[in-house]
């Protein structure tokens, strides 16, 4: 399988603090990469560097072999990157359909077709029956699904999910895991930052563990979580 997303030596620092230190990764098309690590490990910063919301000081990023290191976030969306935000960011004054419509317009400039696409995506995430509700009034699980719908409506080839599972109750979590798994059937590549181990183990094809801005280990999910270095990073030494 060809590489969908590749990053070489990404380094991001804020003032004197190095948040991400020389991180490289490579995800094959249709695979899921899990990104884990304790709080403050630099996962979200790496995530933002890959999606363009933070500018790395060093390193290069490639999408399907084309360099995107210098593209601003909206250009990365246009070339095939979709993302969700850790704290969901719906357009609160708009209805669910309008929220997704904003994203759907990217690939379908005509109103009728864009609306159709938005409705299809809402159907997929199970929010179609609430299409005319203002986004402001949604509960957490539905806000997550709306966030996912917005990311899917730009029809990305690589999807970035930032802690989609956090705070969901067990049935909602199961549903979300099932949903994400089905996305890869359509050849979508996924990079996910996640704290919920259940989701990481069930979904990831490959896991990268970060601590203090650096990759401490990577590999298959089952192997990684038993690695003593990972346990130390999470629980500390004694």
């Amino acid at each position: 399988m060809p590489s969908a997303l590749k990053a070489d030596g990404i380094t991001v620092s804020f003032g004197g603090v190095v948040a991400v230190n020389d991180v490289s990764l490579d995800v094959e098309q249709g695979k899921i990469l899990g990104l884990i690590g304790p709080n403050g490990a630099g996962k979200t910063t790496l995530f933002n560097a890959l999606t363009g919301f933070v500018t790395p000081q060093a390193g290069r990023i490639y999408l399907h072999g084309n360099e995107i290191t210098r593209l601003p976030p909206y250009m990365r969306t246009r070339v095939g990157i979709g993302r969700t935000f850790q704290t969901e960011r719906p357009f609160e004054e708009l209805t669910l359909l309008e929220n997704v419509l904003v994203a759907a317009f990217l690939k379908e400039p005509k109103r009728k077709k864009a609306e159709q696409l938005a409705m299809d995506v809402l159907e997929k995430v199970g929010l179609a029956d609430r299409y005319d509700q203002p986004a402001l009034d949604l509960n957490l699980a539905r806000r997550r699904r709306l966030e996912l719908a917005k990311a899917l409506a730009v029809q990305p080839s690589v999807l970035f999910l930032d802690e989609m599972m956090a705070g969901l109750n067990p049935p909602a979590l199961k549903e979300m895991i099932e949903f994400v798994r089905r996305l890869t059937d359509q050849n979508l590549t996924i990079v996910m930052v996640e704290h919920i181990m259940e989701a990481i183990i069930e979904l990831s094809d490959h896991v990268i563990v970060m601590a203090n801005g650096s990759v401490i280990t990577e590999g298959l999910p089952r192997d990684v979580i038993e690695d003593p270095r990972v346990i130390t990073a999470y629980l500390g030494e004694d």
Partner: protein
Amino acid sequence: MKKHYIIFAGLVMVGILYPQMFPGYLSVAITLLLYAGWATAWDILGGWAGQVSLGHASFVGLGAYFVAVGTAHHEIAPWWSILMALVAAAMLAYLWGRLTFKLKGPYFTLSTIAIAEIFRLIAINEGWLTGGATGVFIMTLPEPFGLDLFSRQVNYYLALAFAAITVLVVMLISCSKFGYQLRAVREDEDSAMASGINPTTVKLKAFMLSGALTALGGGIYAIFLSFIEPHIIFYLLLSVQIALTAIIGGRGTIWGPCVGALLIVGSGEIFRTTFAEANMLIYGLLIMVVVIFMPRGIVGEPARYLIRRVYAKRAQG
């Protein structure tokens, strides 16, 4: 959306018949229509794109000065000078936006006051260009198709056309791709970028359209007044009134700015004759009541309430 077009057609009909019904009240109606148009134009940037400008008097002034100086000093017909003003206003808005859109929220608003003040000072001090502090008189105007551009009746129909054009533009935008891009940028710029939208481009387009339409009204205003003074036409108060008209009526709604104009121009007129002294007091109270109890404006608040109630009912059963 169909509903809005029916309201629009109805209002335009009433507008066309108005001079026959109330020939004695044309000046108030002209002021009302100009404010309705300006506030609607302002709202493209201030309401739909969420960038509150307190510098729109600059665009009124630009349009007014192009027309007045054009006829008084260079013998350019007003329709040509208005066209030039539209282009100049769009260019000005582009440069202005490039310079200030890096600033967010109140900082953007403050910068618009500062830039507008620069134009006021230029208009006052650069007499060779603008006629200086004494202002410009429009003595003669051409008579297209035998129409006397100084007549109140003609002024009225010009103002009506201006208001109708701005409202029509906003109606078209509101359900287009551009309309949704504007709303997305207003709500959350990062989230808009994640949907592939370049917030700066969208805001620039909104500013250029808003500025050009405001200048169109400015040109008509100059013909209506036939005498313009920099102290009045470039003054902060005019910018504030335009913004307040839209804010009180309801930002980011199709009819809010028009309702705001009706209320502000209308109440100003009524209270000036009945409570001459208390005029400003009542004006201030009105603004406070709306801001405190209806932060989304007179049109915005009930519209939102209705949407939520309809939804809540359906969710229950």
